[in-house]
């Protein structure tokens, strides 16, 4: 589906640009965006380095395990296939908790680390998302938001008399989003089990022969 969305965005935009005679501007925008993509990624280096270092300490000291134990009853049900002795559950817990508290910059590195942990549970040459990865991303994008700090700051800046009165609605709306995402995820999991979970039948070769495996 991401393939279709990508092509629609790209080709749809190009067609509209061609029709409207704005092709040069749009081409320029595409080139600028490519450079910006690199900037965004490199902009992550500092924060990622800091939090991945912290994450390693939390992991080694057992702090992460404690947090994971706290959320374990929920996470075990959502991720039955993830072994309990991997740091995956701990990193996911850290990510979800940081997200709930509105700490995006702290949440992302833990989330990326969790993805790495989940990735290590599958064949390195397999570039297909595992069901646990999808469940985690669904939880992450529809995460319960208890402290919408940035929007409250925006409201204060705009001169609101009651900047925090959107906290209640936000908690309710994100709870609804989370519930729907979890239910939808369960449904798709059941409808489209991952190739690995389908049984003992060997997986058909998915990449054309001669193509090098994905880099680790």
């Amino acid at each position: 589906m991401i393939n279709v969305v990508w092509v629609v965005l790209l080709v749809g935009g190009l067609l509209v640009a061609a029709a409207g005679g704005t092709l040069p501007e749009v081409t320029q925008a595409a080139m600028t965006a490519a450079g910006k993509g690199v900037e965004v990624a490199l902009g992550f280096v500092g924060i990622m380095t800091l939090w991945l270092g912290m994450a390693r300490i939390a992991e080694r000291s057992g702090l992460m395990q404690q947090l994971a134990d706290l959320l374990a009853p929920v996470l075990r049900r959502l991720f039955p296939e993830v072994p309990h002795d991997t740091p995956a559950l701990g990193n996911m817990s850290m990510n979800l908790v940081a997200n709930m508290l509105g700490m995006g910059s702290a949440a992302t590195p833990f989330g990326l680390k969790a993805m790495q942990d989940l990735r290590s549970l599958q064949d390195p040459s397999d570039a297909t998302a595992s069901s646990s990865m999808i469940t985690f991303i669904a939880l992450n994008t529809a995460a319960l938001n208890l402290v919408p700090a940035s929007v409250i700051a925006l409201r204060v800046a705009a001169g609101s008399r009651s900047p925090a009165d959107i906290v209640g609605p936000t908690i309710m709306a994100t709870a609804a989003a989370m519930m729907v995402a979890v239910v939808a995820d369960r449904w798709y999991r059941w409808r489209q089990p991952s190739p690995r979970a389908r049984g003992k039948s060997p997986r058909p070769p998915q990449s054309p022969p001669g193509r090098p495996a994905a880099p680790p």
Partner: protein
Amino acid sequence: MLNVVDGISIWAVPILLGIIPVYGLLRGVPVYEVFVEGAEEGFKMAVMMIPFIVGILVALSVFEASGALDWVIARLAGPLSLVGVPAPVVPLMLVRPISGGAALGIATGLLQKYGPDSFVGRVASTLQSSTDTTFYVLTLYFGSVSIRRTRYALKVALLGDLAGFVAAVVICHALWG
């Protein structure tokens, strides 16, 4: 309430930065060495994301710069206002899953123009804080571990967004409509 929220936003990160090393030290972990060891991965991970982020940002910017996004917004404003979505909020709804920066810009504009305590301002605030930049998160998370086939991930994530939008509008109508 505001003080509590403010307090959490100001203190959460420094507390984490303090508690994690102190706890590690108390548990006998060579904290600095372990920190450096974990931190080494930061650069590698960021570099690995580049192709995925460039791919999505280029497509999004083409869609936006060409005017295609405005066209879609114009088509959807009518039908959405029938179901209770205030027309000025429609662009925010459509942009929110795609571009965090653009959504923040639109939300700021709405708050300035209509006032943060108006109905539009409250719906915009709730929408902005209720959902995430889904496309970006998907690209980033899958990109960082070189996953190319994402199966039903986008569908599930967008269903969650939709539920968040609907809930935000319904709740705002119930409270302030």
